[in-house]
Each structure stands twice: as C-alpha cells, then as structure tokens.
C-alpha cells in the first residue's frame, strides 16, 4: 500500500453501542428488524424463484419510450428538471394524478392533492400529521406489511380487524370502536387497502364500503384509503372507491404510480381536505422539501403521450395470466388442507396452511429448494399471529417460474404435512398393548392437538373463491 487510505470512522465498540443506545429515541424500541429480514436477504440470490417481492414487472415498459422521454426532458428542460420543485408537487403532475383517479371514478380538487415520494411517504406523512404516541390506529388483519413499521415508528397502538373474503369485517370494526369508546379512546384513523388487498388479495364489498363510509361520517372518524392496485382489475365490475362514496370529507386517499407505471420513480400522492393537507405539506417540507423533479417531469411527458391506460391494460393481461397460472399450480401442488384467495386483481394471493405449520420456518425449508415467499407474520403487528399463512406474489416472475415455484413450495408443505402425520400418528395405528407406558396413562398428544390459544384466531382463513371472470 503506497498511500494511506482516507480515514474512515473508527470501529464501533461495545461502549459506543451503549452510548448510542442511550441516545436512541423511545420509538426505536418498537422499530424492529427481524429474522425474516435476514431470510429475505437470501431470496435475492439469482437462482431463487422469488414469489416474495411485491414487484410489478417493469421489463414490460418499452425502453425506447423511456429513452425518448428522458432525452426530450434533457434537451428541452434540463435546468428545470434538475432543480428543486414545489413541496406540493408540480401542477402538471397533479393533472396526471387527477386523470388516474378519474379513471376510477374520482374527481379530486387539485388543491387537495400533494405529490409524495411514493405512496409509502403518503402513509408516513398522514401518521406524522395525525398520530401521537399511544394513539389508536385501526387496520386490517392481515395488513400491508409496509404499513406496520410506519405505524410502529409513530408509536401507534395498532388494532387489527379480521378480514374475510369481502375484506375488513365492518361488524367487528363496530365492536372494536364501541369497546374503544368504553376505554375513552378514539382511533385517529382506519387504514384500509380496499382493492385486491396486500397481502390478502381480497376486495372490500360494496355493502361494506358503504357501511364504512357511513360509520366514518357518524363518528367523524378518518379513513385512510390506500389504493395502489385498483386499476389492476382482471375481471368483475370495479367498485366505487371509498373516497368517491364519501366525497373526500372523512376519507384521506393514498395513490401511487408504482403499480401502473414504475416503483423506481418513487411517485405517489395523498388527497386530503385543506386543513389536513396544510399540515401534511408542512410535514413533507420537513421530510424532504419536495418530490423528485426529474421523475415528475418524466410522468408529465409520459402522460402527454396519452397512452398510459394502454400500458395499464397490457399489465392487466400479463398479470391475469400469471394469476391464473398460480391458482392452477396451487390446486395441483398444495395439500387439501390449504386454502387460498383468488383475487380479481392486484399482485398477491394469500394462502393459509394447516395451523401446525409455521411459515417462517417453512421459508427456511423452501429456500433450500430455491424458492421464496413472505411469511404471514409480516402482515401482523402482534408477534405470533399469521404464522400459518403466506403471501405469494404473481406479478414479478413469468408463468413457468410461478408454476415451478409453487410446485417446490407445495412439495415442502407436503413433506411437513406428512411428517406431522407421522409424529402425531393416532394410537389405533399401533396394535393395542404393544406400546409400553410406565404409569399406564397416555400422555402423548392427540392426533390433532388443540392449540392452547385457540380463542384467538391465529390467522385469517379466507374462503375459497372462484373467479370465473378471470379465466376468460
């Protein structure tokens, strides 16, 4: 070594760790990493078929279009595109957002819209604006895994409401609200992904949408509608967004370009009534001043071509075929005891296995077969819930890989089912008298041991649904 290297930070030593730990904000105590995050790191190996991501297939976006638009931006507005922009976002971007929301029957006032760095920042800013430590936030069970760390970082007291095939159970929501009333607590908001929910794949029924909006009005309760997948519908009739049913008084809306164009451009938005928006804008200013100007320019150029809906339609065709491939493979390779949702859109299927299988451990086994999924636990705030379920993504890889991936997971599950059967083999299989038992009492577990905490459902078991429309 001829030159001494530039000086880097000295090694972190134990007492430095302690010193930092003493400085950490209280909220970091609930910001947890997990074994799963480490396992997920392995899923990035190229040989692994990953059904774990939530990735849209960006390989379908024409590279020539991208090149032409970026070139035009560079030639015609380089200086502006490289400059800061307004905190609320450019009016032109908001025009694009109004078009996207219009395609789902919404007509927001452009003044109520803020452009954010992905939908994720919109959720963060809403929490920043509304949530004090200890405040109750209500969401679905299971809920979007990416929302959990946001709620936790604001130290929200998260209450999850069970979902069934028609989405969040509003009757249970009412019970919970009544119980909270009794405790003198009022939730700051109810968070819902009403269309093709991440992770469960279920859609909130029209009747429940109406009841939720009614409830919000009666109780002056805010609802945060997160709708990244609404336009990715493969069949059936679109349902009106909560925002449309409510008119935007009690429903705050979160949208994104991630699933209809690109997650890499990090462009999303929030829609809120002016008093709330004012605070959200201040929060955004503090967080990052403004959303990327460059990517806003890109979206503006792209929408100016007027073909964004064609691209979404092409994605719908691709994802529908992939969903069909996954459902078909599940029927072929998953054991009879497993159930799964058959979503009419979106990116995810939620499968639930026999309760003695812990999907976090199953993931370790599956990774040996070079296949990955997201264990259900990630979608719950309480440790231990969701252990029997898994989220399977069908948008990120092609049909052949989907079929092979599901085959491998099915094989791993099959082995566990068989093993469990062997371990709990019912006594009648052993000839009477052959098994010696010292004290004469049989202390072995019954064939299907009851769970000690069976009072609380461990995971949502969603009914098997047929989606005839999708297989056309």
């Amino acid at each position: 070594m001829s030159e001494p290297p530039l000086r880097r930070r000295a090694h972190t030593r134990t007492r430095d760790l302690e010193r930092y730990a003493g400085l950490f904000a209280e909220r970091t105590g609930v910001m947890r990493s997990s074994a799963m995050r480490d396992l997920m790191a392995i899923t990035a190996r190229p040989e692994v078929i990953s059904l774990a991501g939530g990735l849209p297939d960006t390989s379908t976006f024409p590279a020539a279009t991208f090149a032409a638009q970026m070139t035009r931006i560079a030639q015609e507005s380089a200086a502006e595109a490289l400059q800061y922009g307004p905190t609320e976002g450019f009016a032109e971007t908001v025009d694009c957002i109004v078009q996207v929301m219009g395609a789902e029957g919404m007509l927001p006032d452009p003044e109520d819209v803020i452009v954010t760095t992905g939908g994720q920042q919109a959720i963060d800013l809403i929490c920043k604006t509304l949530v004090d430590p200890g405040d109750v936030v209500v969401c679905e069970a299971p809920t979007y895994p990416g929302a959990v760390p946001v709620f936790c970082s604001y130290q929200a007291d998260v209450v999850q409401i069970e979902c069934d095939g028609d989405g969040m159970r509003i009757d249970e929501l009412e019970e919970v609200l009544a119980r909270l009333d009794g405790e003198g607590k009022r939730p700051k908001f109810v968070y819902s992904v009403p269309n093709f929910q991440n992770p469960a794949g279920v859609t909130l029924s029209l009747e429940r949408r109406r009841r939720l909006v009614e409830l919000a009005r009666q109780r002056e309760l805010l609802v945060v509608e997160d709708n990244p997948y609404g336009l990715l519908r493969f069949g059936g009739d679109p349902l009106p967004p909560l925002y449309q049913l409510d008119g935007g008084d009690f429903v705050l809306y979160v949208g994104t370009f991630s699933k209809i164009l690109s997650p890499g451009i990090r462009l999303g938005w929030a829609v809120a009534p002016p008093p709330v928006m004012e605070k959200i804008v201040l929060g955004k200013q503090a967080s990052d001043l403004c959303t990327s100007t460059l990517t806003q320019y890109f979206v503006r150029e792209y929408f100016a071509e007027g073909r964004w809906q064609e691209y979404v339609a092409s994605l719908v065709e691709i994802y529908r075929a992939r969903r069909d491939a996954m459902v078909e493979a599940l029927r072929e390779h998953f054991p009879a005891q497993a159930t799964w949702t058959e979503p009419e859109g979106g990116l995810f299927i939620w499968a639930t296995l026999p309760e003695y299988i812990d999907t976090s451990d199953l993931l370790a086994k599956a990774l040996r077969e070079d296949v990955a999924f997201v264990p259900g636990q990630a979608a719950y705030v309480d440790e231990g819930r969701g252990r029997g379920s898994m989220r399977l993504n069908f948008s990120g890889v092609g049909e052949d890989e989907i079929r092979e991936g599901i085959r491998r997971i099915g094989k791993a599950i099959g082995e566990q089912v068989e093993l469990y059967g062997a371990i709990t083999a019912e006594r009648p299989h052993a000839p009477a008298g052959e098994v010696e038992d010292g004290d004469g009492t049989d202390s072995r577990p019954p064939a299907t041991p009851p769970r000690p905490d069976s009072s609380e459902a461990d995971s949502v078991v969603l009914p098997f649904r047929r989606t005839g429309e999708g297989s056309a």
Partner: protein
Amino acid sequence: MRVAVLKGGRSLERGVSLRSGARVEDALERLGHDAVPLDAGGDLVKRLIAEAPDVAFVAMHGLGGEDGTAQELLEILGIPFTGPGVAACGRCMDKVLAKQELRGAGVATPDWFAFNETAFRELGAADALSALEERLGFPLVVKPSRGGSALGVKFAASWFEVPEALVSAFSYDDRVLLERFVEGRELAVSVIGSEPLPVVEAIPGDGDRYDFEARYEIGRTEFVCPAKLNSGETAAVTAAALAAYEALGCSGFSRVDLILGEDGPQVLEVNAIPGLTDTSLLPQAAEAAGMSFEDLVERILDLALKPAAA
C-alpha cells in the same frame, strides 16, 4: 499480506456473515493488509486460485462455511485459514454430535434426545416420544441439530406443543434434538488460541428470549462483560468452556455458549465461527480484555499462520 475474506454463502445466516465479513475487511485494511472480499458462491475455488491469498479469513456462519465445507476446500488448495479445522467445524456445527463428544469428555450439557426424520417417517418414533416427559420433563427445547442464531429453536411447554415444534425444527435440518430446558443465566465464553476471554452475559430485554432478533439488534439485549459472577462461578464457567473447546478439537478461535443454572454451568453449544458483527459477543469480550477489533483480527490471523503460537 493478502487476506481473502470468505463471507456470505447460501446459509440462512448469510446476512450476519456479510456483516461479520465487512467488519473484518475494514479491520484488515486498517492493519495495512490487502483484503480480498469473496462472497462464497459457485466460483469460490476459481477465485481463490486466481487471487492466491496468503491466508483466508473465514467469516462464514452456518452450513457451508461453519461446518467444515469451506475449510476442506481451503485445505485442498493449501491456503491457511482462520478458526477451527475441518473436523472441529463438523463437530461444532452438529449439535447432537457435539453433545455426544462433550458428554464423552465429561463436560456437562443438558440431557437430550435426538431424532431424525426417517425415525418418524419410517420407524414410528412417535411412540418413543412418551418417554420424553419422564426423561426430560417440560418445558423442553426443540432445536435443529445443525443451525445457528437460534433459527428454528422452539420451546414446548407441554405435549401439545411438541409436534409443531418438531415440524418447525425439521424445516432446518433432518435431525433435531429435544433438550431439557435449564433455567439459568445465559453466558458465553470466547476462546482465542487457548486463552479464554472474559465471560459475557446476555440479558434479553422485557422478558424476551435471547432469540435471533435479540442477538442482532442493538438495544434489544443487555450484554454485561465481564459478567457479574463470583470468582468461583467465573472459574467454573471458564473451565467448562475450555473443556468444551478442547473436547471438540477447536483451534484458532470459537465461542462456547453456556447456561449457569442451579447445578453449575452446562454447555449448550460451541460456535466454531462466532459472529463478528457490532452486536456479537466475541468482539465485546475481546474489548473487555483490552483488545481492539484490529488486535483481535491480527491475533486470529497469527494463529492461522503460526498454529504453534497458541
């Protein structure tokens, strides 16, 4: 000196290994060595031949790197490497094998039974489970025989929890052990060469167990080093750790995990290649002994190049 740092690989502890490896590379550069990072993949041997390092620092954890596999390749290539040799790695990695060796050498380790999948699938091992209650009692701990960082380790409070725990443990390995749960303080003794470092105690926060999260997340677990033990306890714990290290044939460095219960220290396992991350126990113990991380890395390299220096 040209030092290849072997890290990553396909093991479930890949993430931990990458953090250990990065930290070692950094230390090597500070020490003026030429660090060559190698993420262990299909081209490992090819790259080792091409890079022709003077020595290999093995910073891999779990299957593939801590079980003797990588060490065997290094031996074939004639490249000296850090940490225990092939046979010792193999013994440490397999908890059942390790416990048999420990017991054979008179080192206390909690009672256990081991089963492989075939026993259940083909030989009706389920019928033998009824002997467990009498022999081990509840609660008991169910562990995959080969695995690290507490992955797949479950506690069964009663019969009803055993089948599920077995299915989980079998997800990581085709052999599992059911071990008597020993109540006590969780301690670790790292050994470098043949020198024991101060005892570290891990005290998990708010009633948590010392599980995977607790191991790698700053602030989740309180570590006390040197552990607050009386001199008799310290001597007994250190002696048990050294006996375990020797019984398994370790050399270079390793970490022995123990429980100090009512009946004295009992060895749970020996980690052939313990973690070297910010929150790992070995670097903490070294620091308590007055060794910086650089000193530690240098010492481990010396031991690899001059085993007699131990």
